[in-house]
């Protein structure tokens, strides 16, 4: 199947004609940053990073964990923990229906997938959030899954790694969602007291209650290039201060400059970087 070569010259954008777009659909995807048409397969092999401009496409939760764990192998955890509808919440549609549609559309049981396995030989409990599930929002189920992940790590002296991608707390569960920030942070206090590592990786976008809780509590905090990271969303800030935001505001590089991140890491270097950090943070069990 290796009919293409990695060092293939730059592919021209398919700019003219509907026909071409239709014919190439399924094989190509256009980079939203540099407009280059990329082979889907090529993109997959580069971990969904544009090989021309380095743009990081959003990555699904399961793919994220596969890239992290050694040989892509991990044991999924707490998949039965899913969202309920504690407030009988109805907006433009009932929350119950929203959950069901999100599950069908994303193929995921919840906005975070968690699992355990080895990373560079280290025992790791990892979670990855997914924007395609109600905007990666955090409700009770997400809070419970992350808390269990932390507790499992504490039981077996493992490390915790969480890849965030979230618009924040899930409105449809009201104050219960807000309290997940508390619940997870309290669990992280214990992990911290136990001397176990927590690496937080912030991907595009991470905002609101997720940023203002566990995402900013990593022993080491990593951002993916150009990821939007903030407490308030850019639109809320613009409405408050009634002016346009400066270019690059709330992007990873901006946070790095302001001392809020340890590093900005290309996704293709992510695993090696994490293994390097774990080597420092984990005790060798011989």
């Amino acid at each position, binding site marked *: 199947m290796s009919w293409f070569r990695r060092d293939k010259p730059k592919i021209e954008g398919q700019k003219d004609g509907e026909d071409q777009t239709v014919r190439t659909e399924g094989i190509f995807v256009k980079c939203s940053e540099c407009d280059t048409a990329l082979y889907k397969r090529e993109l997959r092999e580069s971990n969904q990073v544009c090989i021309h401009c380095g743009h990081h496409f959003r990555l699904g939760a399961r793919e994220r964990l596969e890239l992290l764990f050694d040989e892509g192998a991990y044991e999924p955890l707490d998949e039965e923990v899913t969202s309920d509808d504690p407030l009988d919440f109805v907006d433009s549609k009932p929350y119950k229906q929203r959950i069901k549609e999100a599950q069908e559309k994303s193929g995921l049981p919840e906005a975070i997938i968690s699992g355990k396995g080895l990373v560079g030989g280290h025992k790791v409990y990892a979670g990855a959030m997914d924007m395609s599930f109600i905007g990666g929002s955090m409700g*009770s189920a997400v809070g419970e899954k992350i808390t269990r992940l932390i507790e499992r790590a504490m039981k077996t002296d493992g490390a915790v790694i969480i890849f965030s991608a979230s618009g924040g707390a899930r409105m449809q*569960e009201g104050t219960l969602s807000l309290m997940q*920030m508390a619940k997870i942070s309290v669990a992280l*206090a214990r992990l911290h007291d136990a001397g176990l590592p927590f690496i937080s990786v912030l991907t595009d976008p991470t905002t609101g209650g997720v940023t203002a809780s566990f995402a900013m509590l990593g022993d080491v905090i990593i951002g993916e290039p150009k990821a939007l990271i903030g407490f308030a969303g850019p639109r809320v800030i613009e409405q408050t201060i009634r002016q346009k935001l400066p270019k690059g505001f709330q992007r990873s590089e901006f946070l790095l400059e302001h001392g809020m991140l340890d590093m900005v890491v290309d996704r293709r270097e992510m695993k090696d970087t994490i293994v390097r950090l774990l080597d420092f943070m984990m005790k060798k069990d011989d």
Partner: protein
Amino acid sequence: MDTSNESAFERVQRARHPQRPYALDIFEHVFTDFKELHGDRRFADDPAIVAGFARIDGTEVAVIGQQKGRDTNQRRHRNFGMPKPEGYRKALRIMKLAEKFSRPIITFVDTPGAYPGIDAEERGQAEAIAYNLREMAHLRVPTIIVVLGEGGSGGALAIGIGDRVLMFENAVYSVISPEGCAAILFKDATRAEKAANSLKLTASDLQALSIIDEIVPETQEWEFSEDSAEEFSANKVTAGLKAVLLRHLRELGKITKEDLLEKRFEKFRAMGKWAGA
């Protein structure tokens, strides 16, 4: 007075009313000998958070709260009760002082939310809130939270981790303002009333959801006049508070530090409702 049949949105309006007592009013009326402490020792002093030492019935405590203003100048000075990172860092600094000198902590929550601005983001608003959540989890002194007026999301929670969470009868505590929720989910900011109801943000709602421990009753008659700020009377709203605080301080004082932390952890650990085992 019995206000159990009031709509959620009426309570939101009461929680925001300038006639309500603010943190400094409580420090003055319920406590004695308040001595304010300023600054986060890192960047600035944030007037949206007030903190210091006080006494309640002779007992030394640290008191901390978000502070709003009543007139235009005061409102601006207090940034409408919306703290910046330095405010949250000041709050934690005072909490750590209380821990160092083995004094209980009482916090008063009253904010529309943490300030959403360029400077706040630059200085790490999210980190400041997150760090407080984690550090409050293992403060080795009794900590009581009182939701006084508006409990506006993460900006409120940032001083909201403790052994007891009490809430005034007409206070609200929510993940998002009803107006914000209406604008995003109902695509119509004028439907705030419906959103307020859906969000289950009143004291009785939150007691039923096991998020708060106790409702502090209010004796204030809510007949607002145009110049209500002049008629403000903290005593009416807060008459019952002192006895409630003393009771909880007494109870918490009997618990060992280890048990205190264990119970605090279990309290927040239990929050949330989900499907599946």
